[in-house]
């Protein structure tokens, strides 16, 4: 176990952008139509949870999935998270992405299937992100199973209380903003490889 270092937001953003792009390119064979956008903004907290409201991301309905990151299994069991990632996919785009899975034979008109698929996208993106962090010499994080919602997460999401900023990344497909990822991440310790 080593020292904690402040994350460079740009590094988080660049790494996460790469993970999102690779996931959709490999799974759905789609390419983003413009460079993703990145903003840092204040976390809105309510009742010790991070407020999540999907409708404001696209001015319309969306599918959402989130999961938490933990430093280790003990923290996972104690529900003491070090990070959270929320994936939002605009409703019509989510249907298109399920169809774009191509060989899957999934029913793109079944909301439950679309929700499950969003959860799988979230899981794969987060898995890649943690692998990337590990390859940069950071601790190998534990991730929770993704939870899935439509439009809103009424109870909000757990987040690391040490953090005040969240990073918002916006992705464009078919010339429209259709995918947004919010991430909050506490500084992760460096460890010896």
């Amino acid at each position, binding site marked *: 176990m080593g020292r904690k270092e402040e994350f460079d937001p740009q590094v988080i953003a660049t790494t996460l952008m790469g993970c999102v792009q690779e*996931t959709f390119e490999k799974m759905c064979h789609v390419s983003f139509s413009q460079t993703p956008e990145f903003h840092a903004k204040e976390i809105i907290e309510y009742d010790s949870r991070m407020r999540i409201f999907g409708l404001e991301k696209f001015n319309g309905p969306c599918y959402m999935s989130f999961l938490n990151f933990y430093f280790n299994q003990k923290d996972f069991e104690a529900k003491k998270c070090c990070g959270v990632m929320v994936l939002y996919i605009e409703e019509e785009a989510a249907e298109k992405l399920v169809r774009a899975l191509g*060989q899957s034979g999934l029913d793109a008109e079944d909301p439950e299937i679309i929700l499950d698929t969003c959860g799988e996208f979230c899981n*794969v993106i987060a*898995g890649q992100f943690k692998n990337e962090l590990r390859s940069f010499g950071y601790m190998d994080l534990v991730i929770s199973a993704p939870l899935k919602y439509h439009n809103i997460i009424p109870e909000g999401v757990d987040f690391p209380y040490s953090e005040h900023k969240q990073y918002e990344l916006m992705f464009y497909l078919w010339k429209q903003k259709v995918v947004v990822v919010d991430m909050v991440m506490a500084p992760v310790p460096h460890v010896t490889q």
Partner: protein
Amino acid sequence: MKKILVVDDSGVQRKMIIQIIKKAGFDNEILEAADGNQAIETLAANFQDVGIVLCDWNMPNMSGLEFIEAVAKVPAVASIPIVMVTTEGTDEKIAEAKAANPNLAGYIPKPFTPDQLKETVAPILSAAG
């Protein structure tokens, strides 16, 4: 013809894997399990017929790592080829999986393309008959 066992807690992921295998031209019967416990039960009931296991790592109840470790300890099933299909893609995790089951036949990090899955699975299935 040997059966294929797909182990993943995501129904969507199982369906995607199955469709890729079918579209690659393999008509083998496909068995499904949502965690390591279900996989052990399924394997116990079909151990003479299963020709390959495709297994996720992170699953509830019993993880993929625990499952492949358990399989390696039972002579009747230890030689069944297992391919890990998982988001756990670091060199350390791959080494951990190989240590848990020395007969590990392949490792496919998610996300994967249909071609990546086909290229790994096809020779194993062809050899299994």
